[in-house]
């Protein structure tokens, strides 16, 4: 174990800003990307469903 306390862990031996700046931005980016791709998918699915409904109304 490298750390005596949570404070020590956060301080990263004085490199806290750099270490957490790296891991934080990385985590944020890798969390955002799936959200954006999910939105892209639900957008296209919504428009496909809407088109299909419109066609069904036309044929009725």
């Amino acid at each position: 174990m490298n750390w005596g306390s949570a404070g020590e862990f956060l301080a990263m031996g004085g490199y806290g800003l750099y270490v957490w700046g790296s891991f934080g931005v990385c985590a944020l980016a890798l969390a955002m990307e799936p959200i954006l791709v999910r939105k892209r998918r639900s957008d296209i699915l919504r428009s496909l469903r809407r088109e299909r409904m419109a066609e069904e109304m036309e044929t009725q």
Partner: protein
Amino acid sequence: MSNGLINWFRYASPQSFYPLAGKMIPWFWALAALFTGVGLWISFFVAPTDAVQGEGYRIIFIHVPASWMSMFIYCVMAGWAAIGLALNTRLSGMMATALAPTGALMAFLSLWTGALWGKPMWGTWWVWDARLTSELILFFLYIGFIALQAAIDDPRRADKAGAILALVGVVNIPIIYFSVKWWNTLHQGASVSLNKSPSMAQTMLWGMLVMALAFWMYAIAIALMRARAIMLEREAHTEWVRSLPEVTGGSAR
């Protein structure tokens, strides 16, 4: 032998690749989560403090995987581009397009974590040296690929133009990789190489490799997800898309 070939071509059509990718995605997410958990645990709780760089070196556990992925994804993208130019298959263009944003993100993360590592260790966020500059060019190649494809309305023509750009840009990959050997640079040499034993502690090496696996699984999962969305967008007016359960109102997934 011939059966193997037929199967490959079967999955080369978006129609049969779409459900296959859908089945594979959750598995890659699960593996990504597993490797991330183990990798972060090794990164922060197992790997010892570095004798020279103290705790600051821990940036390596994301910097190296992100840099590797930025180069590797580019090679895969260029590979799909080459297949697309040679065989004119629909899937290859979709895969190349799906990989580009993730590759750009990895290149960005490589530069970002590199800057945050460079500041405390070298005393500067950025230097115009060979390794850093060629990685920046890689980032611009991804952005150029995305912008070029976005500027062309016909997806098939966009694929072709993008493919040529991707293939020309491949020359940059060995430049990045060997830059630390070919030029004098602030950047340290390769952490891991095939022909000599790694220049770091075993646990540090393991942490880095597990994190690299995590990035790998993440990249596959997200690229497959994006490829599926692209398939729906491009093939919106085909019968197979219109009869998918998620379109006809079956399940929402």
